[in-house]
C-alpha cells in the first residue's frame, strides 16, 4: 500500500527534525542563569521600544534611549554583550515568565502587585504619573479637569492602573482607552481623538519637549510618588544573575555615570535610592 509508505516516511522525517531541538533545550538548563549568560557572553533583555526616552526607535531607525546607554554600562561591568528582544509591552512580562530573556528593561513602575511577583532592581528614575494634553487645549488646567473626558494609556501598564484609581475619585467618569503602546496614545492625542494621555512624568516631559507645539504637561502629577526599575523573576535560577546586575547598577549610580545618563535623557537628575522604598500602591 503506497499510502502507508508515504505516511511512514513523512512521520519519520518529522521526528528527525524535532529530536535535536529538544536535546539542545535540556542541555541549556544544566547551569544557572548567571553561568549561562557569562558562558554565552550575552545578556538577553526584553523591552518595548515605544517608551521614549527609555527605549525608542529614533528618527534614523536606531534603537536608542536611556535603557540602551544604561545597559551598555551594565554590559561593561558584567563583561557581556546586550541582546535586545523587542515586544509590545503587554507581551513583555509573560515572555519574561516564560524565560524568553534574562530580565526586563522597560522600565516598570514599582508597585505592590509587581513586587509580589517579580524582583525589582535598584530604581533608575521617578515614575510618578501625570497628564499630557494638547498644547492648545485650555480646558485642562489641572489633573482633575480630565473628568468627563477620554484619556488614553498603555495596555497592561501601572500608569493605566493609576489613572483608573484616580479617575474613580473624580465627580464625572473618565472614559479610558487602552493602547498597545504609548506611541499610539500620543498619536491619538495629536489627532484629538482623546483629550489626554496619562503616563509617567519623565516620559511625557520628553514627548512635550520634542513637540512643544503639539503637547503640554499638566502639573502637578496626579499619581502617587513612585519609581521605575528594571525587573527579573523570583526564580532561584535567576537570582545570582540579578544580584550581579544589581551590583553593577549600584556601582554605576555611585560613580556618577547614572546621573549623567539621567541628565542626558530626562534633562534632570533624579535622586533615586539604591533600594526601592516600599511602594504606596
Amino acid at each position, binding site marked *: 500500500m503506497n499510502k502507508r509508505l508515504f505516511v511512514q516516511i513523512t512521520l519519520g522525517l518529522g521526528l528527525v527534525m524535532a529530536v535535536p531541538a529538544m536535546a539542545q533545550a535540556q542541555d541549556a538548563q544544566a547551569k544557572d542563569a548567571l553561568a549561562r549568560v557569562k558562558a554565552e557572553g550575552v545578556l538577553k533583555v526584553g523591552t518595548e521600544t515605544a517608551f521614549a526616552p527609555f527605549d525608542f526607535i529614533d528618527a534614523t531607525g536606531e534603537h536608542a534611549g536611556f535603557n540602551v546607554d544604561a545597559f551598555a554600562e551594565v554590559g561593561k561591568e558584567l563583561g557581556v554583550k546586550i541582546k535586545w528582544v523587542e515586544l509590545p509591552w*503587554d507581551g513583555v*512580562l*509573560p515572555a519574561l*515568565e516564560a524565560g524568553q530573556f534574562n530580565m526586563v528593561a522597560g522600565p516598570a513602575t514599582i508597585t505592590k*502587585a509587581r513586587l509580589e*511577583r517579580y524582583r525589582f532592581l535598584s530604581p533608575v528614575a521617578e515614575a510618578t504619573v501625570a497628564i499630557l494634553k494638547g498644547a492648545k487645549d485650555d480646558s485642562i488646567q489641572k489633573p482633575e479637569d480630565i473628568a468627563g473626558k477620554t484619556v*488614553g494609556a498603555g*495596555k*497592561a501598564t501601572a500608569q493605566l*492602573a493609576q489613572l483608573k484609581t484616580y479617575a474613580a475619585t473624580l465627580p464625572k467618569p473618565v472614559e479610558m*482607552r*487602552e*493602547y*498597545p503602546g504609548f506611541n*499610539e496614545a500620543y*498619536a*491619538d492625542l*495629536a*489627532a*484629538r*481623538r482623546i483629550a489626554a494621555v496619562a503616563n509617567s512624568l519623565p516620559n511625557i516631559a520628553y514627548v512635550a519637549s520634542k513637540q512643544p507645539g503639539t503637547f503640554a504637561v499638566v502639573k502637578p502629577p496626579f499619581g502617587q510618588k513612585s519609581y521605575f526599575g528594571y525587573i527579573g523573576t523570583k526564580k532561584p535560577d535567576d537570582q545570582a544573575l540579578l544580584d550581579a546586575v544589581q551590583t553593577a547598577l549600584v556601582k554605576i549610580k555611585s560613580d556618577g555615570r547614572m546621573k549623567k545618563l539621567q541628565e542626558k535623557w530626562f534633562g534632570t537628575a533624579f535622586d533615586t535610592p539604591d533600594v526601592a522604598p516600599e511602594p504606596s500602591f
Partner: protein
Amino acid sequence: MSFDVSVVLAALPAILSGLKVTLGIWLAAAAMGVVLGFVVAALRHFGPAPLGLALRLVVEVLRGTPFLVQIFLLYFGGPYVGLSLDPVPAGLLGLTVYAAAYFSEIFRAGFAAVPRGHVEAAHCVGLTRAQIVRRILVPEMTMLVLPQCVNMAVILVKETAVLSVIAVPEATGVISAIGSQQYAFLEALFLLAVIYWGLVEACGWAGRMIERRLSKFRFA
C-alpha cells in the same frame, strides 16, 4: 504553570462585553462586506471599462496588503487627510472594505461560472438586465459562492482580533488586558484560543447547514 478558573469567572462581565464587540463588528462587517462586494463585482461585470479597471486596482491593493497595515493606515494615517474616526467605526470601516474586496472576487468568479446559456435564454424570453441579475445570476451564483463566502466569514472572525491594535475593545484586547492585570497570561491565551476556535467551528457548521438547505436550488 497553573490554570486559574476563578480569574475567568471574576472577569466574566468584561469578557462578555468584549465578545459582544467582536461578534457585532464581525457580523456587521461581514454583512456590509457582502453587499459592497456584490456591488463592486456587479460594477466590474456590467459597468463601464474604466470604472472596472479602477475597481480592479483597488481590489488588488486591498488583497495584496496585510489587514494590519490597512488598519494602521486608516486609523493613524487617516487624521492627516481629514478622516479621524474613533476605534470602533474605524475598525468596522476597515474590516468592511477589506471583506468587500475578497467578497467581490468570490462574486466575480461566481458571475463567470454561471453558464452563459442560462443568461442567453433569459435574454431570449425578454427578461431585462435587472431581472436577469435578480432571477438568474443571483440565485445560481449563491449556491456556487456559498462555501467560499463561509470561508471568508471564518477568516473575518479571526481578523477582528487584529483590531485590538487600534484600541477596539473586542475580545482579544479585553481578555489579554485582563490576563495582564491578573498575571494570568496563559489562561487568557487559552480562553482566546477556545473562543475563536468555537466561533470558527460554529460558523463552518452553520455554513454547511445553509448549504444543505439551499442545495435544492443548485442549477449549475
